[in-house]
């Protein structure tokens, strides 16, 4: 039985599509972002209710049960995940969406006699599988279940080419025969292609690839809409595909990278693979008391927070230190690199969580000229975003990425856990400069020691 006639069904789907457009527009401005997200959720709710009321569905108790399972699994994870782990969760959710699209296409093969519909099925299967497997690898990299450095082996381009050729052949065969077995083979080839695509991507570039795979999943959903003759899926999927493409390019531009450089850069030469070797050059390490004296008698201090600060949950201590210094009449700012953390805008989220006052957070363009006037730049758990190699070393994987110019400050203090290179896997020459000193240890502990020492000055 269906309670809604086709006209009402179409109108409700249209309303949902409009809500999705409003959601994306809202999400691109800080003032309306939260409302935009809620509008999107409302659109999704309308669409799901509509499908139940308009289609002749069997197995309804099973469907409701599966929706309950999906909700019970995802909602608590989404609610409880640490802010530092947000990027890998976004990758995971994107991947399962791609997987769902591929499975839907696989099941529709039975009903598809038209070659154009079969072409859409082949596209959805392949792109959905690439997105699922690729997102799985990005998750593993961000969660540090595997190395975050580019993984390149001899013959990788040849293997990739072979997989893609086999996928095209299998795709053509599926279009001609409609064979389910070949479709499953295509699915497997898509999974392999997804893994091979993301393995060579280096740590700092992983978030951009998540955005790219997000756009892929959008396209897979749009193609599955063609398969099912459902306009809402076509519109929503295309919207995400297009906006995701723009977003991917904007994120790449923020890091001074090209998208093709990110995907295929590791094929071109060994230098992008980064180094694991720790240099033998001497560094100047200092004590918390030394750092406190340096800070306590400065006039201007700029704190540069990085992912290491967030992981150590040291945001609150950093905020307290800033307050203690300000109480001594010292001018303190936080310098936020656009890709500090694991993703563009991630550090703003993390510091906002720690209630660091908004007006102390300075964007890169604003703060860079001010490093010259700073007595001390205090780098807490950041490395790649202050590495001068981005400006000077053309072979470096982060070459071209805009950086925070802490080298201009009179003194630079790094709070670091160890000499291990940062996320991008490259050494920072700034660590060996004469104006630089290092305080080793967990970011939160070190900050607490420095804070204690400042208070006794």
């Amino acid at each position, binding site marked *: 039985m269906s309670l809604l006639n086709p006209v009402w069904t179409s109108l409700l789907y249209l309303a949902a599509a409009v809500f999705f457009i409003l959601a994306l527009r809202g999400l*691109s401005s800080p003032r309306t*972002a939260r409302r935009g997200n809620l509008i*999107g959720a409302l*659109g999704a709710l309308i669409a*799901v209710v*509509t499908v139940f009321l308009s289609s002749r569905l069997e197995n309804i108790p099973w469907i409701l049960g599966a929706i309950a399972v999906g909700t019970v699994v995802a909602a608590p994870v989404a609610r409880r995940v640490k802010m530092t782990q*947000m990027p890998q969760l976004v990758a995971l959710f994107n991947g399962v969406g791609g997987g769902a699209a591929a499975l839907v296409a696989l099941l529709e093969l039975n009903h598809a006699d038209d070659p154009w519909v079969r072409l859409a099925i082949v596209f959805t299967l392949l792109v959905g599988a690439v997105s699922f497997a690729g997102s799985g690898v990005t998750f593993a990299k961000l969660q540090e279940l595997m190395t975050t450095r580019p993984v390149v082996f001899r013959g990788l381009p040849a293997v990739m080419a072979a997989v893609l050729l086999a996928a095209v052949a299998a795709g053509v065969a599926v279009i001609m025969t409609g064979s389910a077995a070949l479709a499953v083979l295509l699915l497997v080839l898509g999974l392999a292609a997804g893994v091979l695509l993301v393995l060579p991507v280096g740590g700092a570039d992983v978030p951009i690839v998540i955005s790219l795979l997000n756009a892929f999943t959008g396209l897979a959903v749009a193609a599955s809409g063609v398969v099912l003759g459902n306009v809402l899926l*076509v519109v929503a999927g295309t919207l995400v595909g297009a906006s995701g493409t723009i*977003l991917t390019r904007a994120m790449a531009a923020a890091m001074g990278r090209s998208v093709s450089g990110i995907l295929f850069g590791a094929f071109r030469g060994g230098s992008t693979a980064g180094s694991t070797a720790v240099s033998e050059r001497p560094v100047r390490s200092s004590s918390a008391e030394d750092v406190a004296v340096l800070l306590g008698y400065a006039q201007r201090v700029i704190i540069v927070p990085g992912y290491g600060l967030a992981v150590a949950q040291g945001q609150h201590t950093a905020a307290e230190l800033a307050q203690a210094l300000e109480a001594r009449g010292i001018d303190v700012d936080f310098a936020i690199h656009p890709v500090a953390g694991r993703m563009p805008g991630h550090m703003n989220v993390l510091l*906002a969580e720690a209630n660091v006052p908004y007006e102390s957070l300075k964007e890169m363009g604003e703060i860079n000229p001010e490093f010259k006037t700073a007595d001390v730049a205090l780098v807490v758990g950041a490395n790649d975003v202050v590495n001068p190699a981005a400006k000077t070393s053309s072979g470096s994987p982060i070459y071209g990425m805009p950086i925070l110019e802490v080298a201009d400050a009179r003194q630079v203090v790094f709070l670091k856990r160890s000499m291990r290179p940062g996320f991008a896997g490259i050494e920072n020459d700034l660590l060996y400069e004469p104006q630089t000193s290092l305080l080793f240890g967990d970011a939160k502990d070190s900050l607490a020691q420095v804070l204690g020492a400042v208070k006794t000055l």
Partner: protein
Amino acid sequence: MDGMSLLTITVLAVFVGFEVVSKVSSTLHTPLMSGANAIHGIILVGAIIVTGQATDPWMLAVALLAVVLATANLVGGFVVTDRMLHMFHARKQVAGKEAGTKAMPGEVDGR
């Protein structure tokens, strides 16, 4: 729906997609990515349709898996985006307090 109408809708949607996010600040890249991610979870509608047509047990099992995955994408995506954006809200409110001014009315909801 005929192929030409679908193509028209697709092309128009591409342009709308390009337009709506053409000028996004880097601060919002992560929430926007996450929000767009949630929207493609609407594949749930497709997963429900194929499950509703499934006849043999194997197809039903695969279709139900698709429903679970799509629901996780949809629900998880919106929840995680909302949490991220909530942080931006909290920041503005704190900033208002620090400056000794009252928070704007729109900024105190949801607390």
